[in-house]
């Protein structure tokens, strides 16, 4: 049996990455001084700041791995990795462009028509076009292939009807890539297709669903007979499932799957250092988290390198996401025990009790979003069976 998933091997970042990392850190220092980078946990979900996104884009750090002919930076995926891990570690407000940069851009590049590419990609890279993911529905969570949203053929294209749920950012973004049924064929996976939907269309109705913290990032996204031209179809009809699966590999493997709560740990370290005199117990617990964090990061880099080299990495990505998101939650609990100060959502924004409160209230989401950990473990064991 080969267990390649077990052993992606160490990755050496290219020398350009060291220079790039420093540039990002300098940029973040300036932004921090201006009060725009607040070291918040889960900033890629809730840190919505289009102006920050545009400043990043001006540096070439949005859509940076897209080809230059479409306005991208033409940089490597490993360079992109360095930039996004720096942004996440700093808790920078990156949620506006997150899905466009991570998922929609690469997906349109791979499956889109020439017209779609030249329309969307330069806008994404400029930080001027934001995307939502329209996959889940009320009855279709883990069992995504059961989606009921339908796209029916019309004379001029398609008509879309159904309700997507948990659509992050649908109330503030420009477009959603929607997974819909186009054919009731026997094989549930065969009749699905993807569409690029304008969220400002009058037949799209967005209804908020609030998080435990009261924040508004989630929505119902009611598609009430949205008329689409053929130009809205992404990829080929019936290829939706294959395309979505490819997208999920991008969605699952990134550093946002283990860095969501790192800003909290950094805040704790800062707090402990200011008060001085750490107990050996506190030191050891910080050390334990650091060792686990950096080991998970090594695995994640391995996936990034595999994807950059065009090797399939679905199983590894699932593995990193399960380990990483469990770590995110565990970190919150550990931090709470290392420095027991009651979490308070109403404390001064950015203070340790407030950051802790945010992280606790967000914690149930870490192991759900992007596919639950139970489902991911199924992917891992299926990978084991296939490798036998």
């Amino acid at each position: 049996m080969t267990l390649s998933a077990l052993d992606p091997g160490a990755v050496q970042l290219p020398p350009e990455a060291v220079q790039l990392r420093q540039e990002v850190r300098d940029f973040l220092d300036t932004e921090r001084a201006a009060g725009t980078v607040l070291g918040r946990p889960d900033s890629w979900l809730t840190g919505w700041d289009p102006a920050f996104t545009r400043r990043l884009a001006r540096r070439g750090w949005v859509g940076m791995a897209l080809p230059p002919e479409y306005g991208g930076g033409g940089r490597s995926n490993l360079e992109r990795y360095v930039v996004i891990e720096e942004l996440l570690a700093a808790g920078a407000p990156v949620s506006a462009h997150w899905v466009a940069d991570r998922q929609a851009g690469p997906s349109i590049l791979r499956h889109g028509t020439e017209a779609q590419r030249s329309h969307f990609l330069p806008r994404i890279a400029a930080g001027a076009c934001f995307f939502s993911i329209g996959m889940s529905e009320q009855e279709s969570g883990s069992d995504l292939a059961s989606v009921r949203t339908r796209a029916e053929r019309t004379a001029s294209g398609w008509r879309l009807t159904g309700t997507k749920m948990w659509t992050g950012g649908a109330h503030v973004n420009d477009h959603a890539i929607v997974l819909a049924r186009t054919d009731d064929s026997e094989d549930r996976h065969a009749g699905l297709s993807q569409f690029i939907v304008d969220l400002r269309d009058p037949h799209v109705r967005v209804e908020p669903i609030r998080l435990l913290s009261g924040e508004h990032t989630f929505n119902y996204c009611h598609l009430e007979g949205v008329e689409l031209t053929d130009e809205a179809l992404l990829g080929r009809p019936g290829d939706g499932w294959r395309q979505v699966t490819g997208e999920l590999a991008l969605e699952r493997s990134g550093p946002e799957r283990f860095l969501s709560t790192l800003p909290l740990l950094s805040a704790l370290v800062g707090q402990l250092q200011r008060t001085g005199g750490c107990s050996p117990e506190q030191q050891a617990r910080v050390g334990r988290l650091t060792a686990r964090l950096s080991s998970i990061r090594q695995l994640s880099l391995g996936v990034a390198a595999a994807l950059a080299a065009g090797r399939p990495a679905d199983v590894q990505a699932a593995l990193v996401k399960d380990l990483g998101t469990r770590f995110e939650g565990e970190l919150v609990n550990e931090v709470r025990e290392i420095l027991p100060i009651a979490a308070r959502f109403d404390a001064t924004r950015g203070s340790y009790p407030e950051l802790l409160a945010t992280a606790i209230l967000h914690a149930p989401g870490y192991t759900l979003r992007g596919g639950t950990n139970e489902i991911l473990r199924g992917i891992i064991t299926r990978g084991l069976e296939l490798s036998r």
Partner: protein
Amino acid sequence: MSIESRAESAAEPRSEHAAEALPPLDTAPTALVALAREAGYRGTPAPLAETLLVARPLLAAAGLAVPDGQLTVAAGPLDVRFTHVDTDSRVGPSGAAGTDDALRVSGTLHRVPWARAVEAAVVLTEGPGGGPVLFLLEATEWRQLAGTNLAGEPRDDLVLLDVAVPAERVRRVPAALVREAAWRSGLARAALIAGAARRCVELTVDHTAARVQFGRPLSHFQAVKQEEAKLVEEAALVAAAVEAAASALSEPDSAEFTAWLAAAQAAASVAEITRIAHQLHGAIGFTELSPLRLATTRMWSWRDEDGGERAWQQRIGRHVLDGGSGGLWQQVTGG
């Protein structure tokens, strides 16, 4: 079954000879770590990891010739005097100054890995004038009290009765080398654990595929799959940490910290890896009938040798806390 014969059976799954040719001294560090992992995977009954990753590099760093064959490493307080005492010296008590580095050594070195199987041991201790010394002891120079770890691997006490060590086998070394000996031992142990973890995964995956209960192989049950995936993940985590430390070995700036991380993560992961592997093996894994014990008992031993996860975690934590809030991320990314 006696402890001795368990040590013999340690040769499974594939019998390996201790005297097998060692790789040349100039072998790439990553290749050496790979060999140590392989030794951990196979349960090779020899101090291969100690020889390749600790003893030989220490001897080379101290400027001593590296003898052929397997070596072991020991550190600890001993009673050390100069053989050729400088009688005119007024520094310290009698025997604290000498005319050359020839030493006379007495005392006991505890739980030295595989001492009974090697020709020589690299010893690190406090020299007679203060400051660390490193010297090479030959097997004929010590008396051995046999001991073993949980897995039945030799961990012998070496009794030294006024042993004369000639000056050409002694070097005064900087304190940094003592630290290096510690982190190299941690990395060696982590590499062994990574190998044994892989063995646990393979044995478990094979077992759950072959074992039928309720009319289906165990591997078809959701609950089994969930645990098995966690086992694979934890083993992958250790492998990643060890690989990162292996590639950092040639970078003086980051080698030590990444070795700490690997040592800490490997030791900390042992509990989860062995828990799941044993649980999924059912009762058979709890007996000597299954080869699983050859991996798990070793991992339980190795995690506590060279200090244990708590000591590594504390070292990492102190370092991180010294660096402040920005320091954590900087340490993790290597600058």
